[in-house]
C-alpha cells in the first residue's frame, strides 16, 4: 500500500469484536471452534462452538448388534481409540457376567498404555506447534507412527484397532512381537531426553506455558475436570488406581502429579505419564512372556444371536484425556437400548476451555486448548 493511500483507521469506542477461532483456524485442535470476543489481544468472553464432528454414535449404536459396535466405538476418539473399545467391552461384559481370561486383560493393558503413549506424543506435538515449535510436532508424529506399527502388527489396524471385544481380545500377541515392543520402548525412553531438550526444557515453551490457563483444584473439581488436567492441579486421582479395572491392581506405577495447574503443569504431567506408561508396558511384557496361556477370549454367544441380559451399567477407564465412561442400558435385546458416552473432553473443551481462555490473550487460546488435550470428535461424538 502506498503511503499516500494510507488512512488511519478510526476505531469505534469499543475495541471489542467477535472472532471465529475455528473451525478452520490453524491453531484449533480438530474440527472445533471458539467464538471469542477480543479487545485488542485480550479475550473478553469465549463461547465454545462444537458440533462439526457430530456423527451420532450414541444413536447409531442403538441400531447395531452388540458385536457390530466394536467397529463404531473406537471412532469416538481418533487419537486414543483403545479406551473407547475397552470401556464398551467392560460394560457389555458386566451386563453379560463374562469371565474374561487373565491373559486377555494383560493384552488389553498393553494396548491401553501404548495408546496412551501414542496419544501423549500427538498432544505434545500439537502443543509445541501452537507455540511455534514445529520440530517437536514432526518428532511426536513420527514416533507415534512407530507405535502405530506395533498396533498394526498386533491388531491388523493402525489407528482403529477394533481389537478389544466383549469377552476378551481378537488376537494373541507372540513373544517376537513383545520383543519388538520392548525394543521400541528402549528407543522411546532414549527419545524422552530429546523431547526434554527440545520441548520440556525449552525456555520459549516454558515462558509461554507457565501461568497460562491456570486451573485451581477447586475449579477443577467443580467443572468436572479429570485425567492429567486434574492431576496437574495436585489432585492425585486416577481411575487405574482408584477404581482399578483389568489387572491394574497388579501393576506398579505412580500417579504423576503437578501442583501449578497451568498449561506447563499439564504438559509435565503427560511427560511423566509417558515414563510411567513405558514402565507399565514393560511389566505387561514380562507377564505376557511368562504366561503360557493361549486363552484370550471367553466363550461369547453367536454374534448373530446375542441378547445381553436386561440391565444398566456404568463403566469407566482412564483414557489419555481423562476419565472416560460408558453408560449402557440393555432391555434384554440384541442391540443396546441406550449407550451414553461420558467423554472427558466434553468438559475440558466446553466449560473449562471457555473459562480458561477468558481474560487471557488471543495467542494463548490454541495452546490452552492443546494443554487441556481436548478431543473434538469425542466432544461431539
Amino acid at each position, binding site marked *: 500500500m502506498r503511503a499516500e493511500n494510507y488512512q488511519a483507521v478510526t476505531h469505534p469506542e469499543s475495541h471489542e469484536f467477535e472472532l471465529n477461532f475455528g473451525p478452520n483456524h490453524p491453531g484449533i485442535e480438530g474440527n472445533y471452534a471458539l467464538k471469542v470476543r477480543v479487545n485488542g489481544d485480550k479475550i473478553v468472553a469465549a463461547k465454545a462452538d462444537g458440533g462439526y464432528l457430530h456423527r451420532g454414535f450414541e444413536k447409531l449404536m442403538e441400531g447395531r448388534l452388540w458385536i457390530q459396535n466394536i467397529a463404531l466405538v473406537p471412532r469416538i476418539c481418533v487419537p486414543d481409540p483403545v479406551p473407547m473399545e475397552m470401556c464398551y467391552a467392560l460394560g457389555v461384559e458386566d451386563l453379560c457376567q463374562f469371565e474374561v481370561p487373565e491373559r486377555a486383560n494383560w493384552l488389553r493393558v498393553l494396548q491401553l498404555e501404548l495408546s496412551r503413549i501414542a496419544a501423549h506424543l500427538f498432544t505434545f506435538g500439537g502443543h509445541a506447534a501452537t507455540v511455534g515449535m514445529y520440530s517437536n510436532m514432526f518428532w511426536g508424529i*513420527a514416533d507415534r507412527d512407530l507405535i502405530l506399527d506395533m498396533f498394526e502388527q498386533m491388531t*491388523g*489396524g493402525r489407528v*482403529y484397532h477394533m481389537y478389544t471385544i466383549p469377552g476378551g481380545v*481378537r488376537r494373541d500377541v507372540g513373544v517376537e512381537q513383545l520383543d519388538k515392543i520392548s525394543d521400541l520402548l528402549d528407543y522411546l525412553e532414549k527419545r524422552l531426553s530429546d523431547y*526434554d531438550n527440545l520441548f520440556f*526444557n525449552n525456555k520459549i515453551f*516454558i515462558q509461554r506455558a507457565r501461568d497460562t490457563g491456570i486451573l485451581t483444584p477447586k475449579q477443577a473439581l467443580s467443572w468436572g475436570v479429570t485425567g492429567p488436567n486434574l492431576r496437574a492441579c495436585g489432585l492425585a486421582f486416577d481411575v487405574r488406581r482408584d477404581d482399578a479395572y483389568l489387572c491394574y491392581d497388579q501393576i506398579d506405577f505412580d500417579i504423576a502429579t503437578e501442583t501449578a495447574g497451568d498449561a506447563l503443569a499439564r504438559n509435565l504431567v503427560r511427560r511423566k505419564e509417558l515414563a510411567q506408561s513405558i*514402565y507399565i508396558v514393560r511389566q505387561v511384557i514380562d507377564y505376557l512372556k511368562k504366561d503360557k496361556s493361549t486363552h484370550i477370549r471367553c466363550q461369547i454367544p453367536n454374534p448373530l*444371536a446375542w441378547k445381553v441380559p436386561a440391565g444398566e451399567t456404568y463403566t469407566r477407564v482412564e483414557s489419555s484425556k481423562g476419565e472416560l465412561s460408558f453408560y449402557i442400558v440393555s432391555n434384554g435385546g440384541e442391540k443396546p437400548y441406550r449407550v451414553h458416552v461420558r467423554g472427558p473432553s466434553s468438559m475440558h473443551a466446553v466449560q473449562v476451555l471457555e473459562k480458561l481462555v477468558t481474560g487471557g490473550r488471543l495467542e494463548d487460546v490454541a495452546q490452552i486448548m492443546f494443554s487441556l488435550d481436548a478431543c473434538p470428535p469425542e466432544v461431539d461424538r
Partner: protein
Amino acid sequence: MSKIKLKVQQEAISHASKGSMLRPFKALAFLGRKPVTEALQARIAADIYRGFHLNDWDKCIGCSTCHTICDNAAIQMVYIPDLPSDLLAGKKPFRPAIDYGRCCWCGLCVDICPTGSLALSKEYIHTCTEDHIDSYFILPDPKGMHKQPFEKGWEKSDQTDLLLHHRQTMQQLPALERIQNFDEIVQGFTDQAAFEEASRCIQCGFCHDACPAQMHAPEYIRAIWEHNFEQAVTQIYRTNPFPNVCGRVCTHRCESACAMQVRGEAIAIRWLKRYAIDKVPHARVKALVSQSEISKPDNNLSVAIIGAGPAGLTAAFDLVQQGHKVKVFEAADKAGGMMRYGIPEYRLPADKLDEDIAIITSMGVEIVCNTIVGKDVSMEDIVTEYDAVLLATGLQQGRSSRIPGSNHKNVYSAIELLAKIKRQEDFIIPHKAVIIGGGNVAMDIARSLARLQQQYYANINIIVTTLETKDAMLADDSEKREALEEGIVLENSRGPLECMVCDDETLEGLKTVACLTVFDKEGRFHPQYDYTDEVIYSADMVVEAIGQNTVLAFLGDTITEQLEWQQGKIKVDNEGHTALEWLWSVGDMVKGSDVIHAIAKGHQVAKSIDTYLQNIKVFS
C-alpha cells in the same frame, strides 16, 4: 515407589540452568541421524493386516453371513450365473461384493465366515479417477483387488472364530438300556440345550432351500431362541402338518445343507423342531393351527383320498383349509400309513403320531379306517360321489427276492413283520433271524426283532446280510452305529442264494455267496457273485427288507386301462395329475423316498386339486 528415572523431567520443572553458549551445537548430533520422514513408497503391511478382501470362491458357499454381520452394509451378495448351485449340498451361486466406500475393515466378516473362505489381504492402496469410481465396488476373489500377488493378512483361526461349531449333545438311551424295550431312544433337548443349539444358527436359510417342503426352519429356530415356542409351532405348521413325526424321523436334508457343517457340526434342526412341538401343549397347538390359516367358505366340492399316510393326509390338511370336503379312506385300523406301521415305536412313539393326526382331523378332515377300497367301498362309488380322487396308498407289499425257499412261512417281508410288531400281533419270535437288505427298513426290523429277542430270550442273535459294503449301505450312519451297539451283526457283501428248508419243512437258514459288485457299468442293479465263497447263516426266520411294491388292483379294469403307466407305476405329471382329469396320485406310489418328500408332494398335489376344483366351480 517409582523405579523410573525422572531426572531429566525434574530439571525441566526447576528450570534452573540457563544452559551454555555451546548448547545450540547439540543440534549437530542430529546430522548423522536418519530422517523420521520416509520416502513415498508402499510399505509392506503387517502379517495380520486388514487390507482389501480376498475370497476363495471354491470354498465360499454364498451363505451371506458376511453380508449379515457387516455393520456398514458394505457387503452385497451378487448372483454369478456361471457358478454351480446345489441347494441340497448347501451351495449357492452368490458371492460377496464389497463397497469400499463403506467398508471399515473391521474384519468381522472374516471372523464370522462359516467356511473360512474370506480373508483380508496385505494390499491397501487403491486410487482411481472419477471415471472409474465404480472400482471401489469389487467382487473379491483369491487373486486380490489388482491381481497382484499380495498375501493374506487377517485370516480366520480357531482362536478368532466367532461361531459356535459344536452341537449340543442329545440325551439318548444307552444301548444296554434301550434294547430292553421299545421306549423312545432319543430323549429330546433340555431347555438349556435347545436354547444353546438354536443360538448357533446364523439364519442363512440354506435349510429352507434344501427341505423338500421348504420348511421355515430359520424362522422357527429363531423363535425357539427367543423362547417363543408358539411362534415356532406356527412357523412349522406353515409347511408341515407332521411336526411330531418329522421332529423325530425326518431325513433332515436341512442339516446336510446347513452352512455350519462346513467347518463344524450342522444345527440339530430336526431335534429343535421336536423340541418346539413337545414344548407346546397339544390343545394349544390345535388352537394355533386353527387360527393360522383363514379357510375359505365351504364350496360343496369334495375330494376322496385313498390312503392315510403322510402324503394323503398332508393333501387332506391343505384341501380342507382351502374349503373343500375331504374324506380319507384307510384300509388299516388306524391312520398314519408307514409312519404308524413301518417306523418302530422306539423311533416314533404312536401317541406322538396320534397327536399330529388329531390336529389334522380337528381341521375337518374325515378319516374312515378299516375301509378297503375295492372291498368295503367300490372305486366306482367313490368316482361318482366325489369331484376329485387322490391315490395315496403307498407301497404296502414287501418285495421278495424270489430265491428258492423264499415262500416258506418263516420267510417274512420286513414291512409285514414291522406292522405285526406295531400291532402287537402274535407270531413266533425267532431265536436266530437273518435279514436280507441294507437299508433303513432292514435296520428297523433287525432292531425291533432284537428287542423282542431280548425280552423273550434275553439273547440277541440277528444277522443283517447286505449286498453292499458297509460304507455303501443305504442305511443311515446313525442306524448302522446304533444297530451294532445293540448287538446286531452286519454281514456285508453277501448275496442271498437260498432259504434253506429241511425235509421236515423247518427253515434251516440262509445260504449266501460273496457279492463282488452290486451295479453294472451303466449303474443298473446287477449284482455279481463269487459262487465259490459260500456261507450259510443258520436261522429260524428270514426277513426280506429289499423294498416294497404298490398294489393297485382296487382301481378296476376300466380305470387301469384309461390310465397311462410307466415302469409299473401310474404316470403322473409334476403335480401328481394322472391322465384322468379327476384323478391324482401322490406319495411313495409315485416316487418313494421319505416322510418329508411325501409331505412336500402332498402340498403340491393339493394345490393342483384345488386349482381343478376352483375351475369346476367357475364353469358350473
